């Protein structure tokens, strides 16, 4: 090696001979299979939960309540439409994550990672807030028709039970966005450091 001093090379080689294999190949294989299965299960699980929630919402909003007013029908369409839109975005994002960029040259890997994280940030911030906003608007559109059938107390209980979890959900989303923004910044800095 001509690039670095021979002393460093000798130290490195000594180190290499003193290292015992950190883990057995069998353990790695088992772990790899387990992680792979867990990851697929998690991603599929997420989509299944979202899909089932959508079906339950469809049942209640379309068949069970069977709204009559035009305003309520617009509300239902907004709620279901944007919920479906969010599910499609999540599925698209999972599809993007599957690409095998880990085997590509680091500059490509970081480039794709940057694009992917930008997409995640966009999904988790702009689109999720948009979905929440439109969903809430849809919910508000339902209230006049609900008010015909429910007492003030139950109306108030319904509104509170919508907005309290909504606020908690917004805080969780905000935390996730910050985490992904931090990851994005790290990737951008790494890319800059690599290409510099």
């Amino acid at each position: 090696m001509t690039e670095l001093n021979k002393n460093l090379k000798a130290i490195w080689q000594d180190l290499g001979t003193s290292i015992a294999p950190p883990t057995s190949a069998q353990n790695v294989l088992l772990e790899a299979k387990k992680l792979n299965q867990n990851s697929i299960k998690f991603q599929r699980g997420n989509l299944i939960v979202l899909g089932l929630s959508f079906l339950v919402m469809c049942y209640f909003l379309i068949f069970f309540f069977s709204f009559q007013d035009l305003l309520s029908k617009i509300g239902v369409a907004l709620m279901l439409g944007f919920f479906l839109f969010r599910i499609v975005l999540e599925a698209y994002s999972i599809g993007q994550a599957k690409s095998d960029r880990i085997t590509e040259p680091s500059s490509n890997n970081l480039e794709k990672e940057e694009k992917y994280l930008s997409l995640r940030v966009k999904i988790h911030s702009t689109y999720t807030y948009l979905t929440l906003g439109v969903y809430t608007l849809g919910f508000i559109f339902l209230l006049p028709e609900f008010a015909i059938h429910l007492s003030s107390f139950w109306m108030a209980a319904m509104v509170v039970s919508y907005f309290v979890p909504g606020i908690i959900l917004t805080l969780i989303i905000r935390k996730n966005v910050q985490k992904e923004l931090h990851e994005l910044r790290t990737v951008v800095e790494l890319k800059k450091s690599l290409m510099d």
Partner: protein
Amino acid sequence: MVFQLCMGFLKGDNDQAEDLTQEVFIQVWNNLGTFRQDSTPKTWIYRISVNTCLNHLKKEKLKSEKISMAIREQPDTVEISSNETDPIKALYTAMAALSEVDRLITGMLLEEIPNAEIASILGINEGNLRVKIHRIKIRLKKLIPND
């Protein structure tokens, strides 16, 4: 080779290096099907190792500020303590003063990987790599004055 590269990257942290090595081999296993014959298996494994090391940084949630500080150029005044007698520790301490990317390049140079291969692993051109190596050499000389 992978464990050593991880050790250098993680500044000699044995436990973390073991975890990262395991992660590299998990990635190797999971991506075996995507291996094309356009590079040697060794280069391919190094590529996965380097990317796994870089991804590791992203996952380190609590180190956000540390990472951004470390990526920036280190001050040239940092020197290895003269009473550091263990040469391996001295090497790791010196590598710790380099940026993450420079630590990976140093590790691959010490593994005697040719420049063309390192450039292909990192996805940068050889001219850019030579500039980086030159900077690393200058920094290591300052960090290990007796080397």
